[in-house]
């Protein structure tokens, strides 16, 4: 597969390490009352869709960017690639 790196352009997928569902960005609030439950779901419950999926890929043999790759698990079509940091910011993760 070829991953369109937002900074480096098209790169072969063999340069990357895969980590699955990009929901891992949405780490729950540890102070919340439901934290124990939230972290359990965050840590153990993931979707494994046949179709479009937001995934985390690490450019380990490149610039060490974590990317969020929107990929169709059936066809391997990739519709969107973003820097995970941008996604994290957009989802409201700050200091």
């Amino acid at each position, binding site marked *: 597969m070829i991953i369109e790196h937002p900074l480096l352009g098209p790169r072969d997928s063999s340069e990357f390490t895969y980590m699955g569902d990009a929901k*891992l960005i949405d780490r729950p609030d540890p102070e919340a009352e439901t934290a124990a439950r939230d972290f359990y779901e965050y840590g153990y419950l993931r979707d494994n869709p046949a179709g479009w999926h937001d995934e985390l890929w690490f450019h380990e043999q490149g610039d060490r960017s974590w990317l969020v790759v929107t990929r169709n698990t059936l066809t391997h079509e990739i519709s969107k690639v973003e820097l995970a940091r941008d996604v994290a910011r957009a989802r409201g993760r700050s200091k």
Partner: protein
Amino acid sequence: MTQKNRLSGGQIDPNETFSFKFDGKSYQGHKGDTLASALLANGVRLMGRSFKYHRPRGVLTAGSEEPNALVELRTGARQEPNTRATTAELFDGLVAKSQNRLGSLRFDAMAINDRFSNFLTAGFYYKTFMWPKAFWEKVYEPIIRKAAGLGSLSLEDDPDVYDKGFLHCDLLIIGSGPAGLSAALTAGRSGAQVILADEDFRMGGRLNSETHEIGGTSGAQWAAATMAELSALPNVRIMTRTTVIGAFDHGIYGAVERVSDHLATPEAGKPRQILWRIYTKHTVLAAGATERPIAFENNDRPGIMLASAMRTYANRFAVTADQRVAIFTNNDDGHRTAADLHAKGVKIAAVVDVRADAPSSMDYEVLHGEVVNTKGRLGLSFAEVKLADGSTRTLEAGALGVSGGWNPNVHMTCHQRGRPTWNSDLAAFVPGADLPMGMVVAGAANGDLSTHGALLGGAQAAKSLLGIKGRLPKLPETEDAPVNVTPFWYVEGASRAWIDQQNDVTVKDVKLSHQEGFRSVEHLKRYTTLGMATDQGKTSNMGGLAIMAELAGKTIPEVGTTIFRPPYTPTAIGVLAGRHTGQDFHPKRLTPSHKWAEERGAVFVEVGNWLRAQWFPIAGETHWRESVDREVLATRKSVGVCDVTTLGKVDVQGPDAAQFLNMVYCNGFAKLAVGKTRYGLMLREDGIAMDDGTAARLAEDHFVVTTTTANALPVYRHMEFVRQCLAPDMDVQLISTTEAWAQYAVAGPNARKLLEKIVDVDISNDAFPFMACANITICGGLRARLFRISFSGELAYEIAVPTAYGDALMRKIMEVGEEFNITPYGTEALGVMRIEKGHAAGNELNGTTTAANLGMGHMVSSLKDSIGKVLSQRDGLNADGDLRQVGIKPVDPADPVPAGAHLMNADGPVDATHDQGYATSACYSPNLGHSIAIGFLKNGSERMGERMRLVSPLTGVETEVEIVSAHFIDPDGERLRA
């Protein structure tokens, strides 16, 4: 002997003669021949024995789809089984051997199997070798294993080199027949970056095999002229002998270039084959079509081949399989073969056509009927024909050309889940609508079987894919005959009529499997093994489908095809490995002082790809324990030095560096003073311990973090994940500096005295106390880092210098340490000393243990958030009676305490339900004079002094042990603060 079946003309070079050997006998052929064509020229029709029944077989085809003529090519280490004689390019001195025989090819003892064919039907093995059960391993399997398989291996190392390469282009053209060449001309002239690949060693595809003219010259001449023009274009890369083996995601294609297979041995410095990964924007698949046979009784005798192969042999290789040839066809193609052979002076016994409206000929007899049987022991002698009027004729012929129509080579269109669709005009599957990204199919592969259709399709495909403006130039005049085929798959009543010749599957087998309930085409394939041989059923699958369809009362498209998967043709494992063999398959990482360690005679061990010195034997030591005990005692007595370069190092810088470390470590780092080092424990988000190490604060905004050797990579990846995905606005940067610094542990009571001779700064206990760290200089100005940390429990330092100075520093330490009797120690002594101190390492941080298990539960700070904090507080990980790290010592000092053994109460049963814990790390402690271990014990911290049993039922060990503190040596840590 002369080449009795050599004709005139063709594209071989009659002036260049090669000698070669087949089964020990010498023959001659010409440059441009394949092994198959050269053997046929010499009158050799018998080339092998079949897989199951050991029936005599010759060539069926003239290309890579060949099921029968598989030979062992070359000798010695280069011997290669199952090489298709039809694609093996002849070279001078070629040596080949037939395979799958017991005795000679002409008198194969295993041919007895043919007599028992009634028993060896589909599913024979499943049905027969069921009882008695005990017989399977001892009797049946060894016999079957011996009899099964084709060819034999040299069992020597492959002497050749294979390479991998990467190519990029605008347009990849697969196949160099009329469609491919036409596409290449159109694309090449437009200036696009083009790759034209063909598996053959002569470009032109069927143009080399046919006699049609293109623009007034022969097809072969037109192909040669076109290739000359393309060769002159700098934007066109021509790849002969290159098989595109698969269409992968996003326009990536795999291709194997056979660089040296046509030579006796590869030229110096050249690989045998190259696996190319081709990245292309667009692809024209012009893979052509494969003719299919018709099944009839005894249709597998040497001399019976595809009619199109006969034309290839005659027109391209100037060879006929025999001087007297018959044809059996259901379409006009068979008549082309007869006409071409007749023109070359070969006698045509007759053309047998199943169609009532077959074209007639002035030159030979055309019979309306079917070939119903054949005769001839080791090759065809007679063909029996049943005419439409019911009468029979016997044709005398040494060769029979069979044409059952053409199957477009749709394989590559299906590698991305596409399925082909049925075209009833051709009675064949053609590419479906769902093609791999950027692919257009042209020519025969697309069902355009005429030369004109191919030229047009290729040009149009290139034009549309590349968006070339304007009208196409006028195409040269050539044949544009319509397809006229009457579907005809097998002769009624035939049973021992071969569908899949390579796996010996007959019409009868297909019928039997249907009768036994195998209705899905995928089940048929697996039960009968139809299409599962090295040719992947290129000439046989359609026949099987047609029979299945007939039996099931369905149409062929309703039955459907099995799935086409890469590779297109058999591919050597060697080329998939490329240069990644031996050392290069598993590279070793060497530390800067590796050479020094080698000079000391170190014994090395591999840790995370690194080679680390395990111990340093000296003269007179015969057992590793002697060396390790000496190293441990000497270090604790005076001073030792150990290479710890391999530990992972991560540089953490930025205003938020401390805050970041607070996040990744469960314990706190915000208040760590500059110039101090702290032990840190990282948890996974699920609360399990991930890794440990130290973080040294060299400046307010600068930390150096160490990880364990094995986890250097995953820990760094995890830290980047936290930084980018969880804390995107923290102002902190990370970089791995594992390879940038060489680092040495100097440990022992004399460590300070030794280092004082090297460093340029005051390192007295007051100036540089336990856990201090600093950027310093050594040896009068060389920059270095000094950390007062101790894994051994002794007064110890770790000193780091830029990698380039690592070797020099190690030699310097040894030199100035001479007066203290310095002893280099390896990973074993390191391990002994850390077990003596109860320090956790990989065996304890084993992916199942928590901070609490490790006795570090108090470290998980409740004052701040950190990875793993929330889930580490789960009830399940904090139950009463949880495992705690303990020390284990034998009651009888002579007893061993093996790691991996389990702790059981002093009394009671020894079983899993009564398991109390287990030993994780064990060693012999030379300081204590007996074995020791650390491990995990339920409620361990409350059980000090308890007598237990340490058992290993597997190895028969049961030792009485006492539970003690894991800090066997200097439990108060006085030494390391000295």
